[in-house]
């Protein structure tokens, strides 16, 4: 994932990613209830937009700014965009695998990947706990180990 904003991190209203996590939780619940690979593919697209263009450019970020943000007071402080943006990329990975599972008939794979994504989205929405962010250091450690051979 490239950092085009290197040096000047974009800062967000932290309630934005939290609201996005809530919508993601609802969509993933619907995916698991209906087994719809198409719906999960749509969620994958939302994750991709958030990871590539930034959370404010994702549809959920857009909804937050136009529907939710005007009803709230100003944020107490802003947070760095990079952690939640990285988490969107992690979510994208699970959503792509899950959608591939559902659409190819490997329903168990679709359920497993959706369940993992649901755990992360729900933890964020309910407790403000960014599970995807936790993966970052582990991923770097693993990558360094691989490159060492």
């Amino acid at each position, binding site marked *: 994932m490239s950092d085009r904003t290197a040096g000047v991190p974009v800062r967000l209203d932290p309630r934005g990613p939290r609201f996005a996590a809530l919508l993601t939780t609802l969509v993933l619940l619907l995916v698991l209830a209906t087994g719809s690979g198409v719906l999960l593919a749509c969620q994958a697209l939302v994750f991709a937009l958030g990871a590539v263009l930034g959370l404010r450019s994702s549809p959920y970020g857009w909804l937050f700014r136009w529907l939710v943000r005007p009803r709230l007071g100003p944020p107490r402080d802003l947070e760095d965009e990079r*952690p939640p943006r990285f988490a969107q990329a992690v979510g994208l990975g699970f959503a792509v695998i899950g959608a591939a599972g559902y659409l190819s008939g490997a329903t168990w794979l679709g359920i497993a990947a959706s*369940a993992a994504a649901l755990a992360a989205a*729900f933890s964020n929405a*309910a407790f403000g706990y960014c599970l995807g962010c936790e993966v970052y*250091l582990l991923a770097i450690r693993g990558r360094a180990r691989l490159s060492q051979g």
Partner: protein
Amino acid sequence: MSDPTGLIVAVAVLAAATAFGPARARSGGRLRTGGRGDASRLLPAELGAALGERATLVQFSTSRCAACPGTRRLLADVAAVTPGVRLVEIDAETRLDLVRRLDVMRTPTVFVLDRTGRVVRRASGAPARADVVAAVQLATTD
């Protein structure tokens, strides 16, 4: 779709996350006794900074860590009000050697060192202020 498996899994995930989420948030950041062997001491040369006169707070962070800025503010504040205590922040991405040696698995991870660089306490996850203050007291009275 009449197969209820997905729905059952969804309910199980929500129940598990509700049960473990708050518990993990609480246990995360609890200060434990320092590591043994290789993980028991940090030297100024490794830190790339001098130790505090009485104690040193070492925080491992990454740029994708949501809780790191808050922990940095807390530790900087404790260091500012406690004479002889210094905060050193380490970018885990560029110091994977230290990350491995000290077995850092998540960020923020905080080490409380005494004046000789011995690890007195460590916390993986964001610690509470009272715990940090208590650990600093322990490090400075040993």
